[in-house]
Each structure stands twice: as C-alpha cells, then as structure tokens.
C-alpha cells in the first residue's frame, strides 16, 4: 500500500512537471477557458442580474477544468504512443491504470489552476465577487470535482485511444459537456431524454455540489453522487484498460513503427 501511494505520488509529480514546463501549453490551458468564461459572462451581464452572474461565474470556473481534462485526456495514450513511451509503460510490471491515473490527476491539477485563474479574472475584469456561504465546503467541492474529473479522464483515455482521431474526439466532447454538466445553463432546462446523460457524468454532480456550497445548501448529497459516479468510471476504465492492452498485444497497435 505504501509503495502504491509512493508510486502514485512520484508519477503524479513528474507528470505535473511534464505538463507545466511547457510555457506555451500552460498559457493555452488557461487562455481558452478564460476566453470562454469571458464570452459567457458577457452574455449574462446583459440581464444585469447578480444571481445570474453568480451562477455563470461559478459555472465558468469549473468549465475551465473540464476543458483542460477532456481534450488532453482523450489523446493521452496517443501522445505516449507518439513519444514512443507507450510500449515502455505497457512493458512495465504494473497495470496500465496505475500509470494513467497519476497523469489525469496532474491534468486535474492544471484544471484547478484554471479554476483559480478564472475566479481571479472574474473579479478583476467583471468585478464579480462570488458569494461563498461556506469556504471549506466550497473548496472541498472543487477538489472533489478535480478528483472525479481525473477518474473520468482516465476513462476517456482508455476509450478514446481506439479512435485514430482521438484528438478531435476530445474536442467534440468538450462542448456538449458544457451543456450536459450544467455549467452555464441549468440541467433542468435540457430536454428530458438528455437528463440520464447528464447524470452519468460526475462533473454534473460536482458542479451542483459547488453551487450548493456557495449558496449555503448542504452539498453532501451531490458530493456523494459525484464520488460514486466517478468510482464507477474508474472501475470500468481499469477493466477496459486491461482489455485494451490485451487487444493491443494481439493487433500490434502499441507502437507507431
């Protein structure tokens, strides 16, 4: 157990270093979410409704984290394949999931950075002061969003690699996610048949928990659901990851050459 945690921690730290040493990627990771947040807030500002601004402000913050994770996680294995490291990860005596989860955790950490950047941006540019009823619960909810989003990213990484264009798949998921997770528009406004889809994404529950904590409602129910859904993804992804490696060994798809 101790060696397991240590492996997770070191891999996480080193992957975080990989992700954050590229200044260009770092800027992009924050730049896009800030632009999207700006667009959303400009639309909301027309109505001049403080509650609306609070709603959009919270949503835009979590939205940045979603964007960060989705695009990169879905092309994660493809990137490793290009770098020639995928074979080494698979040839290691530990399961692939123990390698992938620290990477998606690192992505989530960049996502957290986006959340903070968005909140600061909202304050400086739009003069939005988010009203947070309980800071501890708010922070906890944001952290849980990051954690469960990492598990969801883990799932994405092992499913998306089957498609040649896993890059575009990630981008394609990004925008529907904005609607489905209730970042800017309440999930209730979506057609009924879309609701199950919304509920099946942990981030929907995480977003709800974040709003609860900000508005002084108990977030525990939503947090519980968010963790439960996240864990389901993790278990399914661990299984799919094993199947993926089996199939890659059969069909020779680990290497580019």
């Amino acid at each position: 157990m101790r060696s397991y945690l240590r492996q997770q921690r070191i891999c996480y730290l080193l992957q975080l270093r990989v992700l954050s040493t590229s200044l260009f990627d770092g800027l992009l990771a924050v730049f896009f979410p800030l632009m999207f947040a700006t667009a959303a807030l400009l639309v909301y500002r027309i109505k001049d409704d403080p509650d609306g601004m609070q709603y959009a402000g919270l949503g835009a913050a979590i939205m940045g984290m979603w964007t960060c994770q989705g695009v990169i996680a879905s092309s994660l294995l493809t990137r490793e394949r290009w770098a020639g490291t995928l074979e080494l990860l698979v040839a290691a005596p530990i399961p692939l999931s123990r390698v992938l989860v620290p990477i998606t955790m690192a992505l989530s950490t960049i996502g957290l950075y986006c959340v903070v950047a968005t909140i600061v941006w909202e304050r400086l540019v739009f003069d939005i002061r988010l009203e947070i009823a309980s800071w501890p619960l708010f922070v906890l909810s944001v952290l849980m969003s990051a954690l469960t989003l990492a598990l969801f990213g883990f799932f994405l990484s092992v499913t998306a690699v089957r498609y040649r264009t896993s890059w575009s798949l990630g981008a394609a998921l990004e925008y529907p996610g904005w609607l489905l997770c209730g970042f800017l528009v309440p999930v209730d406004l979506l057609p009924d048949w879309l609701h199950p889809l919304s509920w099946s994404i942990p981030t929907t529950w995480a977003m709800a928990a974040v709003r609860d904590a900000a508005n002084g409602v108990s977030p525990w129910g939503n947090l519980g659901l968010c963790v439960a859904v996240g864990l389901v993804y993790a278990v399914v992804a661990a299984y799919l990851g094993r199947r993926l490696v089996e199939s890659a060994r059969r069909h020779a798809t680990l290497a580019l050459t």
Partner: protein
Amino acid sequence: MTLAVEATELRRTFRTTTGTVRRTRKDVEAVKGISFHIEQGELFGLLGPNGAGKTTTIKMLITLLLPTSGSARVLGHDVVADTREVRRRIGYVFGGDRGLYERLSARDNLRYFSELYGVPPRTQATRIDELLELVGLTERDRERVEGYSRGMRQRLHIARGLLHDPDVLFLDEPSIGIDPVGARELRATIGNLVEMGKTVLLTTHYMFEADELCDRIAVIREGEIVAEGTPAQLKGRVSGGRVVEVETYGVLEETVAEVGTVAGIRSVAVEERGQQQVLIIQCERDAEVTQAVLARLGDVRVGRVTAREPTLEDAYVELVTGS
C-alpha cells in the same frame, strides 16, 4: 540451469489493411516459426536486414506482442501466461531517440521509470547515480532530455533498461543512428553488461557489431533463421571460397542474374557505391570465373576487378541474399 530464453516455433503474422475506400486485407508473415535458445550469461545476436523480423521476435519475447503460434519462455516463465514474472526480470532498450520524456531531465526520467518498474525506494537514488555513472551522463543529469544528442539519449535508454537490475536484456538495434565514436562507446557498455553477468539479446544489421560482441549469432532472413553459430563457425561457412569484386556502371538486374549462372559462382550481390554498382561474387576457391563474368557483362562498362579472401560480412551477405 534454466535457459535465459527459449523460443519454440515462434510465429507472428500481421494483418494490414490498405486503401481507405476499398479496404483490402493482407496477411504479412513477419516471423515464420523460429526456434532458438540463449544460455544465461550469453550475448546472443540476432542479425538480419531491415524487415527480417528481428523487432517482431523481440516484442514477442518481451510480452508486447502475442505470438500467432508457438511459444517462448524467458528464465522459465511463459511469455503469454506469466507476463508479470517475465516483465519483472527483463529490460528492453530500443534504438532511436524516442521513448523518453523530453521535458524531464535524465534523472527524472529514471525516477519515473524506477517507480513503474518497482525499484525499491531505499535503493533508488543510489541505483540512479550508479547507472548515470555507468552510461556517462552524471555531469548532465539535470538537463532536460530535449537538448540531448542521439548518443546521449541512447545511453540514457540503456540506463533505463537496467534500472530494475534485470537478468535478461533485450537490445533492439541500439546503435542505430549513432556516430562511430558513440557506437564504439556503446559497444563497450554492452560488453560490460555481460561481464556483470547479464544475458543479452542484441539485434543489429551491422555484421561487425555482431562479430565483435556476440558469443553466438543467429542470422534471420524474411522471418526465418538461416544460420546459427559462433562468429567463427559462420565465417567457416564461406572459408574455402573466394570473393571477386567487379565495379560496373549501370548494370541491369537481368545481367546480374545471368552472371550468377556462371559455373563455380555461389552467389552474386550488388552493392551501390555512388554511381558504381559493385558485384560481389562469391565463388569456389579454384574456379576461374573472371573471364566468364566479363563475357556475360557484355557492353556494360566495367571498372576495377579485384579478388580477395572472404570476411564475415561476406558470410552474412551470402546468407541474407539467399543462394
């Protein structure tokens, strides 16, 4: 003592699809049922031209590819059924400059892979120091790999392959793309590994590399082992013969084939050297072939004609051009 590697009738086919609209499937038989074994502590060379099936063979042995049929054991563990046991005991190093995290330093790359390969935390730091020393990267261990030369990357790869102190090392064309000095240092490093008691399977398409390093060599051609033995034994296969080299300009394939039919000639290989095509003709010791060859060449412009003793390279060329 258990064998380090034991391959029995190992076979692997690849299914390739070509075309986007009308997909046609084709099966490529990359490895056609090869068998060989490697004793512990041996440095075994798998020698063959590009596309011969060397990498495919190695990938089956290191559990990255499932054999289509046949079986293989590494230190007694089956490569299909006991993947975990096999993976813990082997190291894998391939040539080229991929397979590293560019944005991490050499030390961090090694730290990362130490975790994946289960190097105990207590010994990790000293192990990494030792290996950096072994491959001569101690001075630049905190620089990002981005800035490394090809030779440095290759040496870092070897350090990575040795992290968990594996008993058997698989080196797939490690010297590819390295300059002669770097390649010589690399050969010295590989030589050291055997002194440390490791078993090494080395693939290469450089004859002299195999000759210098290997205890035993298997020559692989189009997925089949066509000869196996010590370098001396392989040389013995062509000794008793003679080699005639004929420089030509613009010789046609048909003409070369015709030259091959001359009595006393065992094989003819063509080597491009700038504008020349040099015919490397292996023939019986006493055969007088020069006149007959020149007659078959007819109008083709001919430069120098020389005769010499065969080398190991000739043995190799004869084996892989198939005569």
